């Protein structure tokens, strides 16, 4: 192709520079990458994916199956874009691909946006049908959003020279656009492709801008006016650069002022005659129109004859010739009835096998389609609920029909959305007499080599490939797709599916249909879907009010759900093991403190609060006196341990319930569910107060001394403030709630103050404890300290099969009354002998820490698969015990105490002796300090 000296809608007054395969080139504003390359006499863009044949440009739109380019460099590089949809901009860097993109390493610096939209009527497609649909609905008063994938509205009109209401198409488009913009509630989205038709009339669209924008629009009514795509024709060597769809040739002529020097048109329908006529009108040479119809008539054929264009009727193109680079130099034409082939030199072959409505979004909603015999393609049989179809989707391929169905769809949508529309006049168009078209599916190869006749130009699938599939017994379109890869390219086989189905039908004596289209319509970069939700914006980060103090103390943090919790506080030169041992020693020998603010807290109030909690938790709660606390736990309905925590009774009708950090939300939801759906008669009110309180645990034999020095009015003596009680008072001059609960076995006070004073409390306690060597400790030390006491962590030592009995908690279970999950604990499987029980273990090598999760077996030498007796749930080195130890779930449990099992990790095994799970202070002598 060559750029003509005049014409087109490109801005010739300005130039842009871009680079192609490292070569600097120039283009004009308005050029696509494809038109710019053609204007620079670059015919070969890349190569086919498997046969590596040279490939050029075959279309002027999103259906492009040949001209793929990689844009940009590094992390921002975008693979597998279609050169026909990329607008050239100053500094664009692009290179050709063998229809396979490359994901480059690096951080994608793009910052895509996400927007939500609502409207009465969403119109997809801004061609003649979509324009009038949008205008009709807007005139009726509906809020309208019109989305079109191209930079300019007009659709197929952009590539044609129609006259509407006596105006040139471009003037008519401008008038409709102005009318839309004058309407009060219309938004026009250009460069915006509707990708996914969602439930409830939702639509996901991608707007291509400096930074791409993902739209989620919900509309009362959606109008699909997505137009049609031209089909290529399958013949030998039909993939050469220079062979284009006939309408695309017209679009390159009218929009981009590009034309082949000598063109052959190959068509079985009248529409492609426009291509020949327009080329001649532009002063270009049309060598011939090849038409299988014996005597084409009608308006356009008459005009072609009048223009003196050579018409070779009753004939087809049977093959093409190429130069050394594979670029088209000639077409070979032969009569259908048989006879010698004629070689016609040409650098452009404009083909038209017919047109297929763009039904992707209709298919996504499982819309029904019907075969239209006269159009020889599938059209939308009925719109899906909430949708209207207009233009080519209804089978209206002519301009007048597009305009009329656009108005009809606009009226129907507006009315359905509650805006009755008046009558809109259908604009006048020149009447055209159209001859029946003849679909051309495939021209057999003259030398019977069907390995060069391409059905899917993107995936390099040939007629030979389809024959192989049929020979293998493939009989459905979906199987044909998967066997041959037809339609699996990024364009989802827009230009190949119907051809493939009809080709297959010919050889299997029955219709095959086409494979379905699935969302998204076009590939969407993950970065666009992610939007700003990446890096620090990926997920909310929850920190406690004391977080700055942890950061200042050099804490290493661990993610617990969304929370950042200190894992340990290393000093200079310390390993994690060093730090954890030091923190444990401080808790056991002096005093240590921990930020426990992330624990879930729920305020349960009301006259029936005690009754409510007794139904949920499996221990007794009603007999708890105000001011006292109790370790409590609950099951799910299936009897599986769900969560544990301490319940404090603050008053007859008020409880302060704590949950594990990770279950704060689920427990709250669980409580609400039962209260609202099963026991609405209970007078109980729930409030989540997790973030309203900051809680610090002061732990160790010197905890009382430290707290006493922290400006408190509470009597901390063991007699006045016994274990498992809760008191209100002041600490550090702050209103505080103090509980004597311990998760380490040591004397401990959990001090809670209003959240925003948490850091002040931390600093005061630190200062008060400084003389005693107070040590902040993290989750690692917490886990060691609690395991030494045999305290389990729900979700670590238990899993989705562990009952309270398995976990060794049957001692706290109420016998008298019903609770959630109680019935399940009587099920046969729950009382079967040999269920796992929580036990402790000591490795034979006191220096070896067994891997958590390791399986326990009786004989490590047995053949695989081994008989597994249980598994390790917690395993640590204990500086207090001076050795390694752990907890495990073991079948039989108590009966095996004293026995030796083997912990297997890979090919290694370690002998472990099963023991009682309480390793430290079995008498509980240390809890009062």
């Amino acid at each position: 192709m060559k750029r003509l000296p005049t014409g087109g809608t490109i801005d010739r007054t300005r130039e842009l520079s871009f680079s192609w395969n490292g070569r600097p080139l120039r283009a004009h504003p308005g050029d696509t990458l494809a038109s710019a390359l053609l204007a620079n006499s670059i015919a070969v863009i890349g190569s086919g994916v498997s046969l590596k044949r040279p490939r050029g440009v075959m279309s002027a739109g999103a259906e492009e199956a040949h001209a793929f380019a990689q844009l940009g460099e590094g992390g921002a590089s975008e693979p597998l874009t279609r050169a026909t949809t990329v607008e050239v901009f100053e500094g664009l860097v692009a290179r050709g691909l063998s229809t396979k993109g490359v994901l480059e390493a690096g951080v994608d610096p793009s910052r895509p946006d996400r927007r939500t939209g609502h409207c009465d009527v969403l119109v997809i497609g801004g061609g003649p049908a979509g324009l009038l649909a949008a205008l009709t609905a807007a005139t009726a008063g509906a809020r309208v959003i019109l989305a079109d994938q191209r930079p300019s509205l007009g659709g197929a009109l952009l590539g044609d020279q129609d006259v509407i209401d006596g105006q040139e198409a471009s003037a008519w488009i401008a008038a409709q656009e102005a009318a839309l913009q004058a309407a009060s509630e219309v938004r026009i989205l250009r460069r915006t492709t509707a990708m996914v038709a969602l439930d409830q009339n939702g639509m996901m669209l991608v707007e291509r801008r400096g930074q791409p924008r993902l739209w989620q629009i919900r509309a009362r009514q959606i109008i699909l006016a997505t137009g049609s795509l031209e089909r290529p024709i399958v013949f030998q060597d039909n993939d050469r650069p220079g062979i284009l769809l006939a309408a695309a040739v017209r679009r390159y002529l009218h929009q981009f002022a590009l034309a082949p020097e000598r063109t052959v048109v190959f068509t079985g329908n009248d529409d492609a005659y426009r291509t020949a006529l327009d080329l001649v009108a532009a002063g270009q040479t049309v060598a011939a129109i090849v038409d299988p119809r014996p005597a084409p008539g009608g308006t356009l054929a008459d005009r072609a004859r009048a223009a003196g264009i050579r018409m070779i009727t009753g004939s087809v193109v049977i093959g093409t010739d190429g130069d050394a680079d594979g670029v088209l130099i000639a077409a070979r034409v032969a009569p259908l009835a048989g006879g010698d082939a004629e070689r016609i030199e040409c650098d452009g072959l404009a083909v038209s096998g017919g047109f297929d409505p763009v039904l992707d979004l209709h298919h996504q909603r499982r819309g029904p389609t019907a075969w239209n015999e006269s159009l020889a393609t599938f059209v939308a049989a009925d719109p899906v609920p909430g949708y209207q179809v207009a233009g080519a989707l209804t089978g209206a391929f002519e301009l007048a029909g597009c305009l009329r169905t656009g108005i009809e769809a606009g009226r129907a949508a507006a009315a359905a959305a509650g805006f009755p529309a008046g009558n809109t006049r259908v604009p006048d168009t020149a009447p055209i007499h159209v001859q029946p078209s003849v679909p051309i599916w495939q021209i057999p190869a003259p030398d019977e080599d069907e390995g060069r006749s391409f059905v899917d130009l993107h995936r390099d699938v040939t007629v030979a490939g389809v024959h192989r599939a049929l020979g293998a017994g493939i009989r459905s379109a979906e199987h044909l797709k998967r066997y041959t890869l037809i339609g699996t390219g990024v364009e989802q086989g827009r230009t190949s599916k119907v051809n493939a189905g009809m080709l297959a039908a010919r050889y299997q004596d029955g219709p095959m249909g086409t494979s379905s289209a699935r969302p998204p319509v076009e590939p969407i970069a993950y970065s666009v879907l992610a939007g700003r939700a990446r890096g620090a914006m990926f997920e909310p980060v929850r920190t406690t009010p004391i977080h700055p103090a942890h950061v200042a103390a050099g804490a290493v943090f661990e993610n617990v759900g969304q929370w950042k919790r200190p894992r340990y506080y290393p000093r200079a030169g310390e390993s994690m093991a060093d730090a954890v041992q030091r923190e444990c020693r401080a808790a056991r020998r002096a005093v240590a403190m921990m930020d426990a603010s992330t624990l879930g807290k729920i305020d349960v109030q009301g006259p029936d609060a005690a009754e409510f909690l007794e139904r949920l938790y499996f221990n007794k709660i009603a007999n708890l006196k105000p001011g006292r606390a109790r370790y409590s736990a609950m099951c799910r309905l299936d009897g599986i341990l769900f969560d544990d925590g301490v319940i404090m009774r603050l008053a007859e009708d008020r409880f302060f319930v704590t949950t594990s950090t990770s279950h704060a939300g689920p427990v709250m939801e669980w409580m609400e569910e039962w209260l609202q759906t099963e026991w609405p008669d209970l007078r109980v009110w729930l409030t989540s107060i997790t973030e309203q309180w900051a809680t610090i645990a002061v732990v160790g034999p010197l905890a009382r001394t430290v707290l006493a020095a922290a400006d408190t009015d509470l009597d901390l003596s063991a007699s006045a403030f016994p274990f498992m009680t809760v008191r209100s008072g002041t600490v550090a001059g702050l209103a505080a709630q103090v509980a004597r609960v311990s998760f380490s076995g040591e004397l401990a006070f959990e001090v809670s103050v209003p959240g925003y004073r948490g850091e002040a409390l931390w600093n005061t306690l630190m200062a008060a404890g400084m003389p005693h060597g107070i040590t902040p400790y993290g989750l690692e030390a917490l886990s060691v300290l609690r395991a030494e006491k045999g305290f389990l962590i729900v979700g670590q030592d238990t899993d989705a099969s562990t009952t309270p009995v398995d976990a060794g908690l049957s001692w706290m279970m109420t016998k008298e009354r019903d609770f959630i999950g109680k019935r399940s604990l009587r099920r046969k499987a729950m009382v079967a002998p040999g269920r796992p029980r929580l036990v402790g273990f000591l490795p034979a090598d006191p220096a070896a820490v067994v891997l958590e999760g390791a399986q326990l077996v009786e004989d490590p030498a047995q053949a695989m698969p081994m008989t597994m007796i249980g598994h390790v749930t917690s395993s640590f080195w204990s500086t207090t015990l001076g050795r390694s130890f752990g907890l495990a779930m073991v079948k039989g449990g108590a009966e095996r105490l004293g026995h030796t099992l083997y912990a297997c990790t890979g090919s290694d095994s370690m002998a472990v002796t099963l023991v009682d799970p309480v390793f430290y202070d079995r008498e509980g002598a240390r809890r009062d300090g």
Partner: protein
Amino acid sequence: MLQIRCPWCGPREENEFHYGGEAHIAYPGSDADDAAWAKFLFYRNNPVGAFAERWTHVAGCRRWFHVVRDTMTSEIRGSYLTTEKPEDAR
């Protein structure tokens, strides 16, 4: 994403809600025999078409309510209070 009408807050996006499974499953109580209890715990209907199900507006008013949803088309026929019947969906 679905749009769900909370009976108290009006139409909101699906991500404000949590799903609670089939509605109108009566709690049989602890006296149920093994078969009845297993049916209550593990058996749920999975119809094509209208399905009454429970939702909670967890990121809003925290209320539980019921929804009739078409499992084939995801069309939501309406929502109703836990004290009402599916016919009351609106």
